[in-house]
């Protein structure tokens, strides 16, 4: 009896410690989840914090006197004169009206650096288009220089003002106060291609490039993937060849994406002589990369169609192909589409293979077709993120937000499709 009681005693005594261990174990689990979710939150806040300024542009509105004498220009229709004329001069003069004390060459140069690098081009293009404006006074809106833009957008943070001299900072403050320099929604960002100047660079080129590339990927990968899945699930005989195909698909799903870039470089460019940096090539490489994902999810969708449907169709005399094409594939379609959308979202965010096939080139124009040089969203982000200038970092995070918005909406579409169309048997 005493022995038994002591056994119970031992258990009871250890119980407290065991419960404490239990609680500790639970805590580990919660901590792990908290760490993972916290990194997600930090990631998103970091990107939004860095990037929201990318959606803001800084402009200055000036009364510019288009004085022909000042620009060394008396006939804007003359090509040679246009090439030689000084279009920066009227902008400097307009700025000097706010700061009459600026006279020395050095100061004037500093003052002129407040306006963006493309401001003089803007004046030139205006005069080229409307030569009769020569000699008149126009109210024009210019993008400010990148350093000024960064300074204005981060007015409360001294770390962002280091690229401007004290004098320039004073001028900018003055101009902001007078309402000459203002900030507004960055429409430039959504209407242009890349540029060497951050405030002039836009993401439209990359978005169009991404859309073209994804279209090629979709057109190649979706039918091929569905057909392959149908073959493997419905027609493939049990033999070595089928096994070999299956092993290949499973391995391809795990091959690092950069290897597909090597494939594109060596085979499509090297052997078949396809042009570099075009959406067709990018789409082809990404299609090969997403194919395993689409095949695997399509097979799962086909598997989930109950055998009773096949049997019923076969029972009334349908051929195997009719069973598949009239019944199995339409019923499995929502599942296949869900898998494909998720695969496409992955392809949309893929960067590494596209770097190797030359989609990393600096391309200013918005691509016009499947065979014109293009870049895509993630590569554009990579390029901006690798530039040293603060203005580009903003653009990179703004680009990331757009990329994430695309991906989240694609995934939401996939979830919606699954909820809406998928049947439970």
């Amino acid at each position, binding site marked *: 009896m005493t022995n038994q009681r002591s056994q119970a005693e031992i258990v009871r005594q250890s119980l407290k410690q065991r419960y404490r261990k*239990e609680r500790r174990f639970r805590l580990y689990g919660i901590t792990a*989840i908290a760490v993972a*979710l916290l990194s997600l939150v930090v990631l998103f806040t970091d990107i939004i914090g860095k990037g929201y300024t990318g959606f803001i542009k800084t402009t200055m509105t000036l009364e510019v006197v288009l004085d022909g004498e000042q620009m060394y220009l008396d006939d804007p229709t003359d090509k040679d004169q246009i090439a030689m004329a000084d279009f920066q001069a009227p902008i400097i003069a307009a700025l000097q009206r706010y700061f009459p004390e600026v006279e020395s060459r050095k100061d004037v140069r500093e003052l002129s650096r407040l306006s963006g690098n493309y401001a003089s081009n803007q004046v030139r293009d205006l005069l080229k288009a409307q030569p009769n404006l020569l000699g008149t006074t126009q109210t024009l809106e210019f993008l400010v220089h990148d350093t000024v833009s960064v300074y204005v957008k981060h007015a409360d943070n001294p770390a962002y003002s280091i690229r401007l001299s004290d004098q320039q900072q004073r001028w900018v403050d003055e101009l902001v106060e007078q309402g000459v320099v203002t900030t507004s929604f960055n429409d430039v960002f959504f209407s242009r291609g890349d540029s060497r100047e951050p405030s002039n660079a836009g993401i439209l080129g990359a978005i169009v490039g991404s859309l073209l590339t994804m279209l090629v990927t979709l057109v190649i990968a979706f039918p091929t993937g569905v*057909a392959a899945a149908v073959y493997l699930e419905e027609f493939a005989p049990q033999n070595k060849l089928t096994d070999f195909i299956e092993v*290949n698909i499973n391995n391809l799903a795990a091959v690092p*994406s950069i290897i597909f870039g*090597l494939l594109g470089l060596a085979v499509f460019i090297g052997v078949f002589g396809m042009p570099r940096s075009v959406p067709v090539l990018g789409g082809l490489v990404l299609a090969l990369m997403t194919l395993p994902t689409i095949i695997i999810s399509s097979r799962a969708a086909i598997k989930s169609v109950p055998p009773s449907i096949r049997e019923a169709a076969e029972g009334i005399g349908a051929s195997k192909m009719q069973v598949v094409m009239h019944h199995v594939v339409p019923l499995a379609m929502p599942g296949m589409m869900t898998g494909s959308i998720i695969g496409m979202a992955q392809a949309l965010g893929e960067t590494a293979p596209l770097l190797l096939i030359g989609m990393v080139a600096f391309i200013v124009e918005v691509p016009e077709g499947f065979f014109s040089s293009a870049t895509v969203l993630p590569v554009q982000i*990579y390029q901006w993120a690798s530039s040293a200038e603060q203005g580009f970092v903003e653009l990179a995070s703004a680009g990331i937000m757009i990329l994430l918005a695309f991906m989240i909406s694609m995934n939401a579409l996939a979830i919606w499709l699954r909820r809406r169309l998928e049947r439970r048997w």
Partner: protein
Amino acid sequence: MQTANLLPLILVIAVIAYGLAYMRSRSVAGPLGGIRNLKALPFYYAARAALWCAIPALIVLSAWAAFEGKVIQNLVVSSLPVELLPTSAGEASLLMSQINNVAAGKLNPNFVPAEVVGAADQLGALKAQSSQFKAVLVVLIAVLGAAFAWSRVQPQINARENVERALRWIFFACAAVAVLTTVGIVFSVIFETVRFFGKVPITEFLFGTSWSPQTALRADQVGSDGAFGIIPLFTGTLLISAIALLVAVPTGLLSAVYLSEYASKTARAVIKPLLEMLAGVPTVVYGFFAALTVAPFIRDLAEMIGLEASSQSALAAGLVMGIMIIPFVSSLSDDVINAVPRTLRDGSLALGATQSETMKSVIFPAALPGIMGGILLAASRAVGETMIVVMAAGLAANLTANPLDSVTTVTVQIVTLLTGDQEFDSAKTLAAFALGMMLFILTLALNMIALKVVRKYREQYD
């Protein structure tokens, strides 16, 4: 005519063939007393006509488009006088680009030898001829195919069988694309790798401890022969992957355990998709985060406690990569834990063990092989990951185990060697393919082992 324009043309011809065959099958069926007297429905006669029209034409078109460029190039080069014939691969590519540029009007013909201008003219003529021939041939084949199928719209022929057999072959071809891709990958790396080993001995590549692929342009330059020792790259890759796994494995595993054992249904429904979001974020975003936020943070932190850290430390890249593979580990371990039979768990709980004791001494040992498989898969992910390391790890091939130092990886070197200026045939470019082959073999091996382990584990409880 451009290949891209021929595709819609073929499609249009196919649609016309479909319509004609459909109408003919109906008119053939008319005198017999309706379509029930045909061997197949009109749809199948029509579909067969469309297939006969499109498939041969497409095959010829793609073959032509694939080899057109090379054949024309060879014809042009062989027509050049002997003294202009290129002696090396570099000269050949220079010559070709000269000819191309003159032909495209980008290069002033006065700047190049007259023979090159002649070649450019010939190139233009050949190209024009080729595309004419191509267009005529393809359209001819399409029309002939359609005509043949049209003439075969006969009531005693079972078109359905033909169409179904053709579809089966098309489906098979689609499945075979996966095999072709693998073959393509293997061939694309193997040829260049063999050529690379012709320039750099394989032993030096595998066992060399220094990596500096800068080959000099002139023979007398300092450091003219680059060093191609892969060991620093592999240690760098392993260091970063190890850091990533150190982050991802405990976090992923513990969150999977919590989610499958403790969390309520609603918590699970909220947390799981959030965790999976981590896997959906593009790698370039992680790279940005690692390079611009985590790396400076780690450098400042290390400085505060008096350590010297590189601004491109292995630690930053590894940490962020670890965050990326957390959901990978957690969903794999979740599957594995759920595959442990309920009876094992119930038995342990019935003996009075707490949930954590059950987990630690019953479920975990039972699930261990599966978890190991999952970790191997995660490791292969980490080894092949590119963008994070390209953006956050450095280029300097240091042979070090210090996580605060800058290291470089196999994938970073592939990207650096193949972007920017490249000369085909130089050891530098070829080295990238050799690295690609190593990477392919390594990840393939990891995957094969992992899949085998996981499968064996599944079979154990099925």
